[in-house]
């Protein structure tokens, strides 16, 4: 159904930056591009709040359409070397942990040119067995297979040795799985009736086979699912015993001088480089973000932190649906002009009756601000969710969301085009959890007119409201905060969050916390915020890493022994489990999730405290707040947060209002309970509630929190004239007033 898609080279830009725009069409031979400012992206016709503003831009116009290639699947590539192509007798080996041996042919280590049948290819064949292929350089091949499938999710040492003198090729797989299981060890030897042609011009590829895609683009195919550890190339034919000894040896080149390469994946974890620890330095790189910092064949369980025992984390887990950078060709570029005001923008692409928005955020030049208020776009969270498919691929998705699976055209497109990759909510095709999510690819939910209304589209409820109420704002993003820390925020008197600022890197967390301590103000107009610690990478920008350690609403299990992130070595998981719960940052933290019915807020005694007087100006003493709204009819819903002194809510925090009216399907989150029981839902459990809180900081700052994703969805109600809007405006007007807040007496 989709006829046009695209993405930009960046999500956040400033005047002077150049944004490259990549477009692909499915059918149409032409498309049109225009620049729009996104003011409110919710195009529900019953609300009549959608607003975009077309802006003149030099790139506006028609362009020829084309189908751009995307290839998912991670692998290692090592540049071709005479040391490989000049081999006579040789041995190639690796520890192999296949996760889908049944899926068909998969490359393990290959320096193979299919066009000429040159080189070698160590593979898993169609029967799931280890196999080795040699070519004569003119189309002739010989392949030897063990004939026995490798065991799924078990380690094997897979080796192949070509003995030129004996004109024989031996391939073996040595099972080191649990002692209670049947061994899948096997080996086989075959005659080679030609002198192998080792002159492949292709790079050496691990976890796939070399391939040349259309237009001569180098790449790979036949992707391997599973882990490889200690791949080695040796310039002699080793017998099975010597090959096994080599496989167990951490420094094989120290005792075997014929070692050509001994790649050590435990080196440069967190980077894109693959290091050859042997004497020849045949280094390479990873493509499409396979998972590093994963348990190797020799993991003992003594250490859970890869930094403490890197020698036991020498594996890489590859997936056939990993994708980092789609690497499309640029269709046109846009230099951000100096006079373009800060805001949310999009390149609107149209082809036939279809359209797509390439959304991006324009921030002021570094070190400057054009408003006293900053809207902090939750781009880390947008990335975490990018191309999420959990809702229609999870058996319990419908009962979790309380809906009948309903797919929008963009979601149908994702289902039918697996090459666009997954979100951190999904599982790979081999069942392992997705840890990385990139913005360097088309992201179907990243823009206006998307459904379900979530992330950026939900956040535009706030932008549309700011515009409607005449509150000036700049837009900054999580990536900016990650890179610049408190210096970015200190340009502003106050920061307003989006509806769902869920994922935070440590620099983001530290920057925000320092800003508030130094006198900054934050209006947290959302829920389920500041929950998960994630990481970003300087080596591989445009992606977040997430390890869903321990508990929380995880959507998938994290692999034991792999709770420490690859990008920076930090322990992943909930900030709460790190001893820094969101309650200590913003007063509230997530307690419940539910999507069928939203509740409303009832004022508490603390709301009549003089300290909170400015918040409730124009609000009646008994007025129910937010018993209306886009998200299931109320301002307190979907994912809600409450105060908890035990988790760090500051003692002087005013709990201004608390929500009621939640349904049985709004249930306590796993991190809040020690056991399941028969009163989990909001119809019975008093802990299922959102708390509206306020507190000051000693530096003159203040924090206001509503603890509900649904809150911004109530802002547009009744033409933006309602008590959710009034409370929010009261807060922001005061927060941009530089008069310091005073701590309460005592």
């Amino acid at each position: 159904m989709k006829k046009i898609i695209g993405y930009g080279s960046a999500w956040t830009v400033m005047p002077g930056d150049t944004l490259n725009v990549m477009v692909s069409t499915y059918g149409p031979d032409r498309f049109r591009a225009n620049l729009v400012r996104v003011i409110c992206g919710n195009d529900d016709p019953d609300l009549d709040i959608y607003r975009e503003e077309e802006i003149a831009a030099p790139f506006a116009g028609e362009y020829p359409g084309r189908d751009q290639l995307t290839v998912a699947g991670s692998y290692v590539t090592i540049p071709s070397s005479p040391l490989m192509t000049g081999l006579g007798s040789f041995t190639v080996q690796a520890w192999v942990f296949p996760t889908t041996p049944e899926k068909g042919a998969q490359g393990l280590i290959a320096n193979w040119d299919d066009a000429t049948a040159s080189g070698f290819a160590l593979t898993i064949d169609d029967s799931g067995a280890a196999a080795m292929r040699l070519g004569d350089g003119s189309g002739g091949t010989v392949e030897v297979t063990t004939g026995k499938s490798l065991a799924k999710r078990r380690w094997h040492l897979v080796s192949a040795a070509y003995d030129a003198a004996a004109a024989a090729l031996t391939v073996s797989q040595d099972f080191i799985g649990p002692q209670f299981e049947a061994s899948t060890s096997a080996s086989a030897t075959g005659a080679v009736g030609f002198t192998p042609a080792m002159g492949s011009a292709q790079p050496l590829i691990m976890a796939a086979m070399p391939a040349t895609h259309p237009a001569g683009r180098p790449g790979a195919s036949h992707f391997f699912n599973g882990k490889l550890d200690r791949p080695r190339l040796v310039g002699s034919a080793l017998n099975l015993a010597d090959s096994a000894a080599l496989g167990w040896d951490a420094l094989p080149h120290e005792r075997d001088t014929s070692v050509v390469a001994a790649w050590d994946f435990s080196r440069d974890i967190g980077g894109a480089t693959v290091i050859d620890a042997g004497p020849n330095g045949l280094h390479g790189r990873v493509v499409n973000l396979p998972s590093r910092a994963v348990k190797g064949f020799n993991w003992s369980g003594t250490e859970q932190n890869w930094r403490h025992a890197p020698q036991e984390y020498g594996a890489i887990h590859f997936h056939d649906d990993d994708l980092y950078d789609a690497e499309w060709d640029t269709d046109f570029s846009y230099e951000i002009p100096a006079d373009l005001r800060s805001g949310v923008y999009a390149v609107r692409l149209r082809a036939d009756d279809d359209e797509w928005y390439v959304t991006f955020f324009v921030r002021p030049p570094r070190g400057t601000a054009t408003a006293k208020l900053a809207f902090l776009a939750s781009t880390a969270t947008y990335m975490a969710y990018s191309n999420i498919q959990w809702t229609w691929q999870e058996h319990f998705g419908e009962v979790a969301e309380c809906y009948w699976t309903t797919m929008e055209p963009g979601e149908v497109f994702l289902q039918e085009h697996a090459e666009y990759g997954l979100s951190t909510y999904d599982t790979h095709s081999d069942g392992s959890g997705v840890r990385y999510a990139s913005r360097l690819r088309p992201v179907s939910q990243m823009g206006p007119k998307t459904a379900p209304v979530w992330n950026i589209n939900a956040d535009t409820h706030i932008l549309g409201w700011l515009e409607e109420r005449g509150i000036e704002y700049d837009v900054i993003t999580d990536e900016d905060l990650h890179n610049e820390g408190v210096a970015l925020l200190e340009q502003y008197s106050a920061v307003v969050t989006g509806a769902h600022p869920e994922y935070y890197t440590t620099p983001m967390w530290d920057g925000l916390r320092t800003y508030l301590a130094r006198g900054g103000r934050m209006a947290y107009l959302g829920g389920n915020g500041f929950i998960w610690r994630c990481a970003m990478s300087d080596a591989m920008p445009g992606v977040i890493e997430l390890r869903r350690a321990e508990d929380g609403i995880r959507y998938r299990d994290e692999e034991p022994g792999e709770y420490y992130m690859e990008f920076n070595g930090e322990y992943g998981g909930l900030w709460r489990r790190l001893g820094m719960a969101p309650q200590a940052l913003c007063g509230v933290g997530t307690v419940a999730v539910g999507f069928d019915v939203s509740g409303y807020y009832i004022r508490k005694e603390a709301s009549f405290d003089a300290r909170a007087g400015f918040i409730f100006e124009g609000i009646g003493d008994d007025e129910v707040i937010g018993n209306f709204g886009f998200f299931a009819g109320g301002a307190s819903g979907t994912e809600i947060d409450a105060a908890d002194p035990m988790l760090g809510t500051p003692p002087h925090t005013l709990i201004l209002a608390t929500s009621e009216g939640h349904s049985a399907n709004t249930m306590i989150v796993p991190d809040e309970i020690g056991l399941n029981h028969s009163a989990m839902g909001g119809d019975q459990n008093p802990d299922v509630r959102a708390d509206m809180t306020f507190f000051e900081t000693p530096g003159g700052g203040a924090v206001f929190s509503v603890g509900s994703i649904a809150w911004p969805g109530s802002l547009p109600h009744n033409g933006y004239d309602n008590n959710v809007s009034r409370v929010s405006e009261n807060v922001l007007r005061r927060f941009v007033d530089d008069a310091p807040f005073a701590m309460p007496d005592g």
Partner: protein
Amino acid sequence: MYEIDPSRTDLIEEFDQNPGGPHSPELALVVNRLRLMPMEERIIIVCTKRHVEWTLAKMPKVRGAKLEYYDDLVFDDYYAATKKVFRIRWQAVTGVAPA
């Protein structure tokens, strides 16, 4: 495991009256049962024109595969589509076609 009593056509009528929920405890059990059908047997809703048109389809077993559309089932009202899904799944689970 809760099993639907196909003679409880009153629950179908209740769903028709309020397809978006929240539902009575008994109907909630029925809805959950229908929402837990095996993935490969589920009939789902596909929006074909935003806010205007919906149709039904069968989910493929694997990622990357095409949906199987029911082109004769096209709706201009979302809740009408949900009522049809409810009936199709009711029949699939109980073996009894709703009236």
